[in-house]
């Protein structure tokens, strides 16, 4: 699948089929995450693949924004301690979030290309997720990626037009397309 097609076609899915996801497919998604760029190439991410039914259920129950049940979730964590050692405060407080977001977007696109649906979830209780997954201090759960075969085709949500979000050469200068 073309990257541009995946970027355009991917949607947040909140209704999934129960069908399990083969290991080699999960691995491809993780591989996509692993190849994301990161500030200073710190690669602060740690992926916790959750497919045990009881654990998944607990994670869902402590995550008000986790809507719909899916056979898999990837909890994307950042190693704050290592990020601080290598990248200082900027590394710990900003880069880790940006880096994990890059990895997550890669995973969303890879999953879509593999016929899967995903939803990023930030509305979860970090305290509860930490407790359930026994995540040690210094490691922060940043985002949950819910993964499963989609059982819905959501309406395409609004996006601002290029003109609404883009300036040319300086702030406030209308972006005009050059003719062919």
């Amino acid at each position: 699948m073309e990257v541009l097609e995946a970027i355009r076609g991917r949607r947040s899915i909140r209704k999934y089929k129960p069908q399990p996801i083969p290991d080699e497919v999960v691995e491809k998604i993780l591989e996509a995450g692993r190849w994301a760029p990161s500030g200073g190439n710190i690669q602060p991410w740690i992926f916790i693949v959750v497919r045990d039914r009881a654990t998944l259920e607990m994670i869902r129950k402590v995550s008000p924004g986790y809507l719909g049940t899916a056979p898999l979730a990837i909890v994307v964590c950042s190693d704050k301690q290592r990020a601080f050692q290598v990248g200082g405060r900027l590394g710990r407080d900003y880069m880790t979030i940006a880096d994990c977001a890059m990895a997550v977007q890669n995973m969303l696109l890879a999953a879509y290309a593999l016929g899967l649906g995903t939803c990023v979830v930030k509305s979860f209780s970090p305290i509860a997720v930490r407790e359930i997954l026994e995540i040690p201090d210094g490691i922060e759960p940043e985002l949950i990626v819910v993964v499963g075969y989609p059982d819905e085709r959501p309406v395409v949500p609004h996006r601002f037009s290029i003109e609404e979000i883009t300036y040319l050469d300086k702030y406030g200068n209308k972006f005009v397309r050059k003719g062919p």
Partner: protein
Amino acid sequence: MQEEQRTEAEERLFDILVFLATSARGCIDEPPLYGPFRLVDALSRLIDVYGHVPGLKKDPFLTEIKAEIDGKKFLVMSDPEGFKRFLDELVRKFTVELKRRSGQRS
């Protein structure tokens, strides 16, 4: 260790309590509109309990309300004005039903 025995109703209610507790904490940092979203989602989850608890039989009015909530709650992300209109309509429907149950005609 002996497994604790819980009824389905107890389990369902406990899950809703966990949802409410995590939502309460989440709402401190989340966008203001997520508060109403969580409440209406809680409504849908509570309606689900009807029919699973002895003494709480399935209620056609609430079943319809639940279907409407589940169909429209995601407007919060795509169309906040539409979400607000949906909540207004929800309140209106509840009020009409309240009046009917109180023995008055709307």
